[in-house]
């Protein structure tokens, strides 16, 4: 008998089918028909392939069914093991007035930082999660403006972890403008990673991210250099946001990252929260505009790799991980049910806990409907809250109209928070959301690449897809 699976005709008109185990196969219409009506008529090699990819099975095949159950568990690891990503929003203060920023407030603004007592409670709450791996990420505003709070929290969490013995990691998200030697010493001592923003070449970066002194780019570069010198060469990673001005210079943006010594870039589309929403006509663009930008940048990155460079695109890596690896890379936005809340929590300066960074941004815009509860409540109460239960209901893809018949539903899941932002309802028709349309496009794009079976690309795709450190072996 055949197991549930969904097929899709790719833009290049080939048929793709994906089984519930996430295994995929390209096949002709005739085989597709046989698969559901008379599998015994399939050629033996095809039959074996479809069986081994869990398109066909039988209740008597006990070993295979246990394997399938194990595979499904591996795919859900991220949302089953308890929240492992803990965002602490320390302050909204920031010297920048970024055009797409969601939330930040000026330096002088009071009342937009977390109270130490609240922060202390958040640090304790993190350990309620059963997850063996915990990442604590400090968010702003510009976090280094409140280094005192970062230091307080890291010391507190580190001390508690002497007993807890979780696999702990800290990330500080910042412009790095205020970074100094004292901070570097502290970060080195506590194994802290730094995450910053680089939108591209200086003129683009400074245009997107204005400061009164018009030198945001230069000061961030100085911060990166200092961190690399004083902490470690790999300590900084950078993120970019694609704006309208980016669209024409994809190669330049990629080259900027290569030039700055980064080994990867995350070509992120603009998300329409916060000020970005108001500035959409200046900043925004359609999916087809973004996809042209992305494809050009992607080809450029492939060329860099072809020439022997080691440079990856992160969004493609996340999607390829879903497609090619048995192990989930842990990307919160691509889970079903959603990773918001189940895999990640945001402890906001306002004393409330939100299921994601976007949710706290919506709160900043006046929509506080995603509050799970207050910092200091139990994790159990938060995860059993009606808000969280609704998020789960709205994002369990096999039961969501639009997702239930989608070939990519083994890899993907709805994002109820962006649906609320876009359409005002977490249960908004999934296939109309930006999240869905963008993901469909990228899955299609990558599958067409995979279908070409170019050996060199497949090698690269598997490398990018791998969330675990590579086991050692020599190159064949």
């Amino acid at each position, binding site marked *: *008998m*055949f197991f*549930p699976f969904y097929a899709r005709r790719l833009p290049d008109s080939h048929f793709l089918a994906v089984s519930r185990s996430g295994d995929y196969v390209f096949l002709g219409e005739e085989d597709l028909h046989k698969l559901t009506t008379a599998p015994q008529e399939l050629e*033996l090699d095809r039959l074996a392939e479809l069986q081994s990819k869990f398109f066909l099975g*039988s*209740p*008597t095949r006990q070993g295979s*069914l*246990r394997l*399938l*159950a*194990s595979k*499904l*568990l*591996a795919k859900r690891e991220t949302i089953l*093991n308890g929240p*492992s*990503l803990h965002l602490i929003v320390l302050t909204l203060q920031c010297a920048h007035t*970024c055009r797409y920023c969601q939330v930040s407030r000026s330096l002088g603004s009071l009342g937009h930082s977390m109270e130490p007592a609240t922060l202390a409670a958040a640090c304790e709450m993190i350990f309620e999660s059963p*997850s*063996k*791996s915990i*990442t604590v*990420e400090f*968010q702003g505003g510009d976090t280094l403006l409140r280094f005192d709070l970062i230091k307080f929290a890291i010391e507190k969490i580190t001390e508690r972890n002497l007993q807890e013995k979780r*696999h702990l*990691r800290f*990330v500080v*998200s910042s412009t790095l403008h205020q970074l100094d030697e004292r901070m570097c010493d502290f970060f080195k001592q506590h194994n802290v*990673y730094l995450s910053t*923003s680089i939108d591209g070449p200086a003129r683009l970066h400074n245009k997107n991210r204005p400061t009164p002194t018009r030198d945001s780019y230069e000061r961030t570069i100085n911060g990166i250099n200092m961190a690399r010198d004083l902490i470690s060469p*790999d300590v900084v*990673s950078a*993120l970019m*946001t694609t704006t309208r001005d980016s669209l024409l210079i994809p190669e330049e943006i990629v080259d900027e990252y290569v030039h700055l010594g980064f*080994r*990867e870039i*995350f070509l*992120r589309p603009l998300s329409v929260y916060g000020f970005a929403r108001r500035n959409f006509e200046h900043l925004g663009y359609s999916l087809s505009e973004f996809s042209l930008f992305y494809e050009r940048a992607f080809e450029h990155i492939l060329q860099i790799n072809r020439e022997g460079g*080691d440079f990856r695109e*992160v969004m493609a890596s996340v999607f390829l991980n879903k497609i090619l690896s048995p*192990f989930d890379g*842990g*990307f*919160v*936005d691509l889970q079903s049910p959603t*990773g918001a809340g189940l*895999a*990640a929590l945001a402890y906001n300066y306002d004393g409330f806990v939100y299921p994601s*960074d976007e949710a706290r941004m919506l709160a900043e815009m006046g929509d506080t409907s995603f509050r799970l509860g207050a910092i200091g409540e139990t994790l159990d109460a938060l995860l059993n809250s009606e808000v969280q239960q609704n998020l789960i209901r709205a994002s369990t893809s*096999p039961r969501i109209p639009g997702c239930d018949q989608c070939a990519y539903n083994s890899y993907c899941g709805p*994002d109820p928070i*962006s649906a609320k932002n876009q359409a005002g309802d977490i249960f908004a028709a999934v296939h109309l959301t930006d999240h869905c349309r963008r993901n469909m496009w990228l899955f299609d794009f990558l599958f067409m690449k995979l279908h070409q079976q170019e050996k060199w690309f497949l090698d690269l795709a598997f*490398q*990018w897809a791998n*969330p*675990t*450190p590579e086991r*050692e072996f*020599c190159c064949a």
Partner: protein
Amino acid sequence: MKKFIKSLSLFIASIPLAAAKATAELPAGQDAVFESQLSDFNPVQLRPLNHGLDNLFAGHRSHSSHRSHSSHASHASHYSGSSGRGSYSVPAQDTTSSPSTTSPSEALPAAPSFSSEQPNKEIVSPRLDAPKPPLPSSQLTFEEKRRLQVMRVQIALIGLGLYAGTVDGEFNTDTQEALRSFQRLKRLPSSGLMTTDTLNALGIMAVQ
């Protein structure tokens, strides 16, 4: 003797149809049925385990080159999903601490696994009785150890022509006398006792 079915298609044709019949009870392709089927199974963690056996096949890696790789995994937490900034990637559970990426210098030159070849190509008639293997000497009682020690000394002394009695583990006067003769030959204090120096000279390690 059982016969081989030498072609794959004949083999498939010979498979009993019991399996096929069982499937008839279940409508194909339905999610609910599918899920309920799987709930009976005890799933297994598919990730490679790190349980201190990392050098198990280390010898096989001895000529492999260590490929240092992009630090993608360790930086996984730095990425944001779609928001202004922030991290949207949950770290993979317990894999970053994986010690399984042993570098070649750490890899022990262990012997490779053996091949499919079979030992005992011809096993012949069984023995009638099956003597039980003895306990390792570490599991003997103190008395048993001492007795074993004396027997070994007696064997050595017979080998040297200094003792002609029985090998019985009794530290009797004949044995002690033979030990004294040996000690005199080796210019050791002739105590007649099993001193460490005496055992060393006899080439016998103390029974542990």
